[in-house]
């Protein structure tokens, strides 16, 4: 049974931090070895999971969803109404996507996603989060000075455009739907998906380049 005692966990953290070897690799190895020895997980499962996250799960999933919303008006409506449900059409559901919300950029508005209290992210849809998303600097600054943050990512917004910064404080997760770039009329979903960058779906990229 769990103690549900945060201070006790804090003491365990301190004890582990001072008694485990300081090399991060050895720390993870200690956990993995014991979990395998105890029959909680098979080492091969860890390897397969890593392969899955490197080959099957990543920003290309979100890009596909965005591209379909550009080409299929009915899907776009379903996505905006309940994104968590809509991505199940692709089989892209998984951890942290059941309560997904899609927020669309327009010429006057821009959306930026963060999680100031930890680092919530729609993993099953976008893959592992970029390190900057989990950084203390991004978490501290995105909510307070989003325009400065966007400048560091090379994005400059008109002064009159509104930025909405979404802080993922509950179990809702956010997918930014960037604007479809001009000059892509008639492109198919796969071609469009290749234009959608990971950062554009978090909000630290805006004008997609037609390549």
């Amino acid at each position, binding site marked *: *049974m*769990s*103690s*549900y*005692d*945060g201070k*006790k*966990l*804090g003491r*365990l*953290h*301190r*004890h*582990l*931090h001072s*008694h485990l070897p300081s090399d991060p*690799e050895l*720390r*993870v190895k*200690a*956990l*993995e070895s*014991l979990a*395998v020895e105890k029959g*909680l997980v*098979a080492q*091969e499962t*860890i390897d*397969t*999971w*890593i392969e*899955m996250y*490197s080959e*099957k*799960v990543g920003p290309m999933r979100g890009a596909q969803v965005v591209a379909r919303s550009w080409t299929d008006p009915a899907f776009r409506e379903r996505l905006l109404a309940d994104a968590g449900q809509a991505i199940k059409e692709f089989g892209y*559901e998984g951890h942290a996507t059941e*309560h997904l919300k899609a927020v669309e950029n327009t010429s006057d508005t821009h959306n930026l996603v963060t999680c*100031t*209290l*930890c680092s919530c992210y729609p993993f099953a849809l976008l893959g592992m989060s970029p*390190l*900057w998303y989990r*950084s203390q600097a991004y*978490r*501290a600054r995105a*909510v*307070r000075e989003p*325009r400065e*943050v966007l400048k*560091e990512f090379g994005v400059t917004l008109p*002064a009159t*455009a*509104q930025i*909405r*910064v979404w*802080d993922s*404080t*509950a*179990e*809702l997760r956010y997918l930014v739907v960037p604007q479809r770039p001009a000059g892509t009329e008639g492109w198919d979903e796969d071609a469009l998906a290749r234009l959608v960058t990971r950062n554009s779906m978090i909000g630290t990229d805006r004008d997609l380049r037609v390549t």
Partner: protein
Amino acid sequence: MDGPHDLGGKDGFGAIDIDAPPFREDWERRQWALSKNVPSGPNTIDFWRHGIENMDHAAYLTQPYFIKWCLNEIAHRIDQGMFTMDEILTGIPESRTDPPASPLDMEGTLARLRANNVDFRTQMATPPAFSPGDRVRTLNTPVSGHTRLPSYARGHEGTVIAHHGGHLYADAGAQGEHRGEHLYTVEFTAAELWGSDDPDSNCLDLWEPYLVRA
């Protein structure tokens, strides 16, 4: 809690390293996979978060991201009685009740990933206190336990822009109590939160107990 994790709006953090990849080291990948594949026991996601929040401030700010996860995974297993402290420090299991776990193939891991899709909605017996368009004010009293109202949004007025029905309430969940509260998205102007002249806003997902009518 007003712990080291409550970073929103804090000053003194410099440039963002925008080029770092999601994983830099193999052990980071392994920790990520471990966290998602080892049975988590009875804990709630919010008690898991609360474990990290209770790290020493300096350790929280200096330890690598996945090492915080690693220490937290171990601390939770010990707290639940799945591991003992001796076992993790020596690497030698004192008891082994289960047979080795069967490996999952790619289809198996993909299926587990999809099965990780957890629904946090709850049925509510009481009607919501607020509706979209209502003006609300957040509480301005610190909470020692786990809570999801960041300090930067305390004591401020905003507008409800969405009601999501009942969702499992994080503050209670971190104490092992599975009950829902009405969840809303509340939009605050940058002028209100930061004294900013920009036309921007901050949107937060907040449970009803955090809010009073403005």
